[in-house]
């Protein structure tokens, strides 16, 4: 078994809102091994981003975080600000969905990357700038020496995301969290960015968590997939098992709803995503599940093994597996 870079156990995140406490993450278990690319898939509101923002310690003060997040041996939940600062950008980095707003508009990008380097390594400004240019080259920015002196608004969307990636891997972190990195980009650019991420992964040995709602993206590059629904992981499997033999009704619903050539009518999942202020008791998916029985409302199902995968459906054994 390869070394585990990130272990998340029973992670809970509660937000204090004017309408009452909102539990966005209701007990997430997750493992990421060194050098592998894991996907976390789910709809908006499933808690996928919040889980990792919590791990990074980037949530506002109104959020309460419970459970355990161990990164390379460090416990991140309840860690001191000093520890978090030393971990962020060095052991673990995060890239976000919109690269334009993620970059500071008034600083040159070379300087922004250099800042990342000098935050965790002792380097002169000049050495950091030089290294920044190298990093730009790695992520495929042409004329990196000139472009390092430019400002974010002078780059196109895809280029900007490359810059963000360069910044994130500047200190060779063990883990890179990519939160919907391709959602804001054109389809052709999406493929390029995924390639960049793969290249960087190979070159630096970084484990990558790819957070997305797009199964197509997942199929290209990931080895393992965690499916999240209503603040919990409901299925965890290897990439082939997810597509060939999904064990949770939600995953099956997701796959069935993908547009397919030759199929005329789209098949959506019935019902609506749950309101996280008052989630359903028991299995949160039961309000939309064709196979729900009374027992589904009894208690929140835990992940159990089902073949090669882990699933949180109490009826997974009985339900026929469809391709």
């Amino acid at each position, binding site marked *: 078994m390869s070394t585990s870079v990130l272990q998340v156990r029973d992670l809970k995140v509660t937000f204090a809102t004017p309408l009452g406490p909102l539990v966005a993450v209701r007990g997430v278990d997750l493992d990421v091994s060194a050098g592998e690319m894991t996907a976390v898939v789910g709809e908006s509101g499933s808690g996928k981003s919040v889980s990792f923002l919590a791990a*990074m310690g*980037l949530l506002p003060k109104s959020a309460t975080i419970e459970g355990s997040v161990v990164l390379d041996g460090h416990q991140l939940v309840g860690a001191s*600000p000093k520890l*978090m*600062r*030393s*971990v*962020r*950008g*060095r052991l673990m*980095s*995060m890239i*976000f969905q*919109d690269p334009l*707003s*993620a*970059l*500071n*508009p*008034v*600083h040159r990008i070379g300087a922004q990357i250099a*800042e*990342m380097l000098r*935050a*965790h390594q002792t380097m002169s400004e000049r050495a950091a700038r030089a290294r920044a240019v190298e990093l730009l080259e790695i992520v495929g920015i042409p004329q990196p020496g000139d472009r390092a002196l430019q*400002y974010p*608004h*002078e780059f196109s969307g895809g280029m900007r995301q490359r810059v*963000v990636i360069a*910044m994130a891997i500047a200190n060779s972190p063990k883990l890179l969290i990519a939160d919907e990195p391709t959602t804001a980009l054109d389809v052709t650019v999406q493929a390029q960015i995924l390639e960049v991420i793969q290249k960087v992964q190979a070159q630096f040995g970084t484990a990558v968590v790819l957070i997305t709602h797009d199964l197509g993206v997942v199929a290209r590059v990931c080895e393992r997939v965690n499916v999240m629904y209503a603040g919990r992981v409901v299925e965890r499997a290897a990439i082939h098992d997810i597509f060939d033999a999904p064990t949770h009704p939600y995953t099956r619903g997701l796959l069935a709803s993908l547009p397919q050539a030759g199929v005329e009518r789209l098949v959506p999942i019935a019902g609506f995503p749950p309101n996280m202020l008052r989630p359903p008791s028991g299995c949160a998916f039961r309000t939309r599940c064709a196979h729900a029985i009374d027992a589904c409302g009894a208690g929140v199902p835990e992940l159990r093994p089902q073949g090669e995968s882990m699933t949180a459906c109490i009826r997974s054994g009985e339900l026929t597996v469809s391709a």
Partner: protein
Amino acid sequence: MLRFVIRRLAWAVPTLFLVTFLVYIALRIGTNPVESYKRINPRATPAKIQQYIDKNGLDPNYVRGYFRWLVNFVTLDWPRSIKGSREVWPQLKDALANTLRLGAAASVVGIFFGLMLGVYAALRPGGRRDVGVNTAAFVGISIPPYVSAILLQLLFAVYWSRWFGSTLFPTSGVYPPGHTGFNLLLMLKHMVLPVTVVAIQIIAVYARYMRSSLLDVLSSEYMRTARSKGISERRVLFKHGLRNALIPVVTIAALDVGSIVGGLIITENIFSYPGMGKYFLSSFGEGDFPLLMPWMVIIVASVLLFNLLADVSYAWLDPRIRLE
């Protein structure tokens, strides 16, 4: 960047002419210079009146008159005041110096403390100190300067001397009456109250600007990115937060400072401070065209200059603007 500045300058010059022309028209219509002259000098001969009209460019044709005035102005051949034919520049110079001193002191103090308070409040939004600062700033901008001036005068001039026998801070003039020569301590003592009055307003306004701008910036995505880099919180605040938050504030400050030369009229009046305000009021009241026009030119030039400066500083601070 240089092209940007040159283009703005190119705009500023014709604007200067246009605005002074409009001012010229407004003053001619509003203060009726010829009548004012006749009123102050009832025994002036028709020849003298005509001379006055010529020197001041008061031809019946506004455009021709303006150019005549402009030529005289630019060649420094300034007509004298209608009262006693006094030279304009010495009076104007003193008034300008006094007001600049007052304005500069109040601006520096006000903007500095205002910005600090704004940052102080924005760091814990909604908390007690934020509410405190916000409310205080609010009260500050709701009290017109002359109300605070009057109340301060009441306090320091009337009651202080009643209770303590002597005045702590003088409430009028640059120096005590009859004083000659330069005395820094006395001058400072006389400046305390007027500067306080002006500074209160400035602090209140800038505290709120800074607070709101900083709050805006603090909730931006790039702040989250900056934090995710693991740099110190102080660096996040200064290099990322403040650097961006200052952009709109600096721009506004540049514009404000530009209008301060003529913006202290009330405060100067209440504290009998012989500055540009007093100069304006007395010359405006008399309809003294030769005194008024140079005053106006200084105001207009100051406003346009600082407008330009505001534009330039905005472009310098925010690279997104430069490429326009």
